[in-house]
């Protein structure tokens, strides 16, 4: 039985990017805020100490920063005819844990979605017609917001994170050297682009010769010492190559722990409760008002924390699971396509071309998760899809993340996996290989969704989240198309061997693909197909806000963190500007 604690103004579930942003913004209003984090307190100086941070076995192979599956995992199946089984070890994706969340071990790539993304369904029907849309068998939705509403919040997030890059479009003026497909920005990136290693440089030169417009991948690994608007200072990226899957010892990679929590934790009206796992949001008898949360602390005691305002801002998977466990919204039914909680689960369609050169040295150990060059001609609806038989595309990039050798010693297909020939091939190809990636869209279809598992439970006895997913036909055709295109670029770069790996079915947990899961608690303008309005306020429960990638109706060909940050600032802005003055439904 949960012991009831004294009420507070605001509880925030999750102290990753979204939760830390909301907690900070509401603490700024003078509200008493309690932030709950199921993992430990993490801190750069101690947890990501430079003396022990560059450790591939610990951080990459053994997944030190990831959520322990023993604490919480998901079950997976490709379709409803199968029985879902638990992910006993993370393979396909890497949920985080602790303050900073997945924002500690992310790559730092910080995109804004392009304007068409926010009204994708309407856009595709306008351009290609209702019939072409129907033929796609997709269940796309508009976001209920638009670029103009999102832009200021993207700008705010980039300022907090110190995002480094080169604008492609400032107030409608296309900028030389930037990504010309960007929506119109209110201003330049807070910091200039990072320096580029040889791989991205060769890619950009070749792509430009082929008529593409290469740009600097927007990076929240900062390019110079930077003090953000909260007064928190970051250090310049050193291209150390221990980045994605690692915490940054240089205070260079933006995370809530390097940009927000150092300021937030100093506020007397904020409390962080770590190792404290929230199990559900409590509702009053009417079901129209959230009254707080139930959580278990590190000692195993369970508590009820009442609050006036409940913000759920955990990782996408836990956001959706908490809403299902709390009975918020109608669970999605894949047979009828009705119901909203668990709806439109999407992923990312990750494609790759590995390039082997005999006569080049890329020094692949130099780099970082967001160090690189990209092109955007193959992304989203930046090219004419008439007659192609698919919608969508991906951002094409060369981002050498580092090449620690347990995971980064590729050899050409056909090489033995062990023995003297294998060793010789590892040595021969280590310095002379690089890859071109295409991080591509994942569009919704009726059978892909999230629900509670009927069999498997977490250590507290609550059902695990069940993921039912496979790549739609649309996305498989897209994957083949974009991978052929990036292979062409690899050939033009002069690679001796180009190994193309378009994503194929079935979706599996065997190797890492992407941690960019989206959907399940969608943003929109229609309560019958969405869970939150454009302010991230839950339909019918006005004092419950659910913030994160769970709000995306489908996933474009971009990394989602920039948008997660922008949505968090958007929700905070609506609460501060509108809700606190007149608590209630902001959209009737």
């Amino acid at each position, binding site marked *: 039985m949960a012991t009831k604690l004294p009420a507070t103004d605001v509880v925030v579930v999750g102290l990753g990017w979204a939760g830390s942003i909301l907690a900070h913004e509401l603490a700024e209003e003078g509200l008493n805020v309690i932030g709950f984090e199921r993992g430990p307190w993490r801190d750069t100086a101690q947890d990501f100490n430079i*003396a022990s941070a560059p450790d591939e*076995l610990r951080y990459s192979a053994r997944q030190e920063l990831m959520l322990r599956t023993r604490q919480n995992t998901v079950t997976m199946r490709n379709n409803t005819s199968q029985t879902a089984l638990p992910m006993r070890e993370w393979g396909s994706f890497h949920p985080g844990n602790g303050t900073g969340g997945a924002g500690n071990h992310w790559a730092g790539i910080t995109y804004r979605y392009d304007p068409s993304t926010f009204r994708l369904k309407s856009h595709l029907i306008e351009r290609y017609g209702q019939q072409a849309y129907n033929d796609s068998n997709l269940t796309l939705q508009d976001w209920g917001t638009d670029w103009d509403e999102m832009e200021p919040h993207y700008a705010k997030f980039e300022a907090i994170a110190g995002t480094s890059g080169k604008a492609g479009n400032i107030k409608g003026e296309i900028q030389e050297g930037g990504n010309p497909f960007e929506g119109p920005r209110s201003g330049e990136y807070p910091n200039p682009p990072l320096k580029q290693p040889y791989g991205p440089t060769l890619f950009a030169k070749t792509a430009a010769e082929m008529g593409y417009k290469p740009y600097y991948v927007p990076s929240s690994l900062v390019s110079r010492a930077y003090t953000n608007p909260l007064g928190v200072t970051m250090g310049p990226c050193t291209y150390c190559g221990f980045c994605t899957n690692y915490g940054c010892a240089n205070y260079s990679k933006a995370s809530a722990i390097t940009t927000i929590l150092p300021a937030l934790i100093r506020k007397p009206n904020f409390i962080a409760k770590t190792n404290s796992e929230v199990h559900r949001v409590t509702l009053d008898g009417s079901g129209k008002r959230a009254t707080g949360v139930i959580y278990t602390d590190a000692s195993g005691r369970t508590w009820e924390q009442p609050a006036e305002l409940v913000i759920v801002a955990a990782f996408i998977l836990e956001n959706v699971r908490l809403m299902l466990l709390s009975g918020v919204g109608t669970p999605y039914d894949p047979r009828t396509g009705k119901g909203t909680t668990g709806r439109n689960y999407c992923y990312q369609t990750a494609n790759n071309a590995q390039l082997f050169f005999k006569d080049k040295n890329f020094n692949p150990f130099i780099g970082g998760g967001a160090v690189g060059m990209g092109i955007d001609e193959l992304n989203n609806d930046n090219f004419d899809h008439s007659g192609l038989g698919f919608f969508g595309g991906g951002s094409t990039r060369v981002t050498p993340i580092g090449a620690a050798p347990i995971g980064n010693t590729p050899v050409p297909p056909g090489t033995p996996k062990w023995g003297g020939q294998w060793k010789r091939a590892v040595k021969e190809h280590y310095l002379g290989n690089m890859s071109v990636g295409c991080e591509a869209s994942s569009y919704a279809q009726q059978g892909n969704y999230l629900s509670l598992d009927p069999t498997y439970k977490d250590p507290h006895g609550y059902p695990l989240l069940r993921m039912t997913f496979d790549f739609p036909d649309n996305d498989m055709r897209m994957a083949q198309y974009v991978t052929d295109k990036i292979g062409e670029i690899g050939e033009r770069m002069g690679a001796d061997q180009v190994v193309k790996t378009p994503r194929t079915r079935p979706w599996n947990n065997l190797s890492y693909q992407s941690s960019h899961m989206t959907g399940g608690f969608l943003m929109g303008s229609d309560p019958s197909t969405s869970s939150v309005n454009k302010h991230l306020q839950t339909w019918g429960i006005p004092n419950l806000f659910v913030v994160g990638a769970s709000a995306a109706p489908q996933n474009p060909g971009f990394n989602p963190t920039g948008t997660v940050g922008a949505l968090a600032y958007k929700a905070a802005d609506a609460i501060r500007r509108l809700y606190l003055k007149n608590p209630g439904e902001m959209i009737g």
Partner: protein
Amino acid sequence: MSNDSGARTGVTRRQVLATSAATAFVAAASSKASALTFTQLPEWSPFAHNPPPTAPPGDHWQFFTADEAATIEAIVDRLIPADDLSIGGKEAGCAVFIDRQLQGFFGTFARLYMEPPFGKGTPAQGDQSPLVPQQRYRFGLAELEQYCQSEHQASFKELNGDQQDQILSALEQGEIHFEKYPSADFFALVLQNTKEGFFADPVYGGNKDMVSWKMIGFPGARYDYRDYVEKHNQTLDLEPLSIGGGTHWNHQG
């Protein structure tokens, strides 16, 4: 780098570097990971950090029996044979690495969800075996020994290199039937752990003298390439560093 590794008593150069890097920027709020509630400015201790979970080195096998260890040493020396490029897997410490890993959290899957039921599942659903690595090795090595005795009237370690390679290939292809844990899965696990031991930081017991890093040109735990990032298509010949230091750092006194 365990806290008791001999070369690291007192304030090392690495700690000094770490501290100056940290104090150059804002000192973030911090406290012990086990604490529950944080407000305002939690305690912070200089030099306190969260070291890697390495098992202490020593001469004794911690998980393997002497016979098992001899077999594993023979296997890793075929998976990564000694040649003109490097020493072999045995001398590089791959068997010691695996032994220490099996004795730690990896060996029992202490961090993983191991609740029943264990369904067979589809290949896409990944590893669903109820056996943890300690069992996978114990059972696999026993069945390998049984196979070698019945086919060759000798232990694996007593066979010549060609015979050993043939058996390893047969395991890899799943052509030898194991009762308790599939032979192909056993082979894949041993191969993965052997490569980890060859390439991981030497603080975990393998990769002796950073041999694999020197072989391929990986500079290890260096943490700053700002001066090198724009040196395109050039051989840098950087001497590698371990998180336990480098051979040129370890002079005492």
